[in-house]
């Protein structure tokens, strides 16, 4: 299955939908800091992988896919929900990369350059996620 980039898809997203994701992302980042200060880094660290904006993103996927079908004269809600389910399945594959990110940060953040560790771990997140996705598409 080829990977495609569609910058025009951004036109479907309304400004308040961008705002909702910014606010949720900001809130969970602030909350993770507050929780870590109050209950310690072990509890705060859990929230570094909290699905903060996932409900908003998955809902947008369903909405946009349903709108596209409606523009073609089809009232197909099921296709929109299927798209959201595929998006969630992709996030499950991405969480493998997220785990790799956490392991690398744990191993290298002490005694190495912060930016080098974060950049390297992010690249490894991307590589592990894409590899997991590629294997999943090949196998099934």
């Amino acid at each position: 299955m080829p990977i495609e980039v569609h910058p025009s898809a951004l036109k479907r997203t309304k400004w308040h939908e961008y705002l909702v994701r910014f606010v949720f992302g900001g809130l969970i980042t602030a909350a993770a800091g507050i929780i870590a200060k109050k209950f310690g880094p072990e509890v705060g660290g859990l929230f570094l992988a909290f699905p903060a904006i996932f409900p908003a993103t998955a809902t947008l996927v369903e909405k946009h896919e349903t709108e596209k079908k409606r523009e073609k004269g089809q009232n197909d809600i099921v296709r929109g929900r299927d798209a959201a389910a595929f998006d969630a399945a992709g996030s499950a594959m991405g969480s493998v990369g997220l785990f790799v990110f956490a392991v690398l940060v744990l191993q290298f953040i002490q005694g190495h350059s912060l930016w080098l560790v974060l950049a390297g771990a992010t690249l490894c997140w991307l590589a592990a996620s894409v590899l997991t996705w590629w294997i999943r598409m090949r196998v099934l």
Partner: protein
Amino acid sequence: MIDILIRFAVGGLVVSVFSVIGDMLKPKSFAGLFGAAPSVALATLALTVRSEGAAYAAREAHSMMAGCIAFFIYVSAVSWIIMRYKLKTLWVAVGAVPVWFAVAFGLWWIR
């Protein structure tokens, strides 16, 4: 208070950047990878190392591994429920959040 506001702004910005990248990609299963981007972690760890030190950030990263497993189970459950029962995405995604809490805190408790 300033620290919280900085975290809010940086976190919101990083999360938004990864979301926009995901919005532009097809197929949806590939775009979904960006729903699991380390956006909150990047913003938090960068600020935490500066304020609390690298050892503190390493302890957060250790717990994050449990959060990742919880995230995997949460999104897998959401995907399966929507696919199987064709329910409204928002209800499933919000309704399943207790799954994340149960797995994350369960793993943290038994560690």
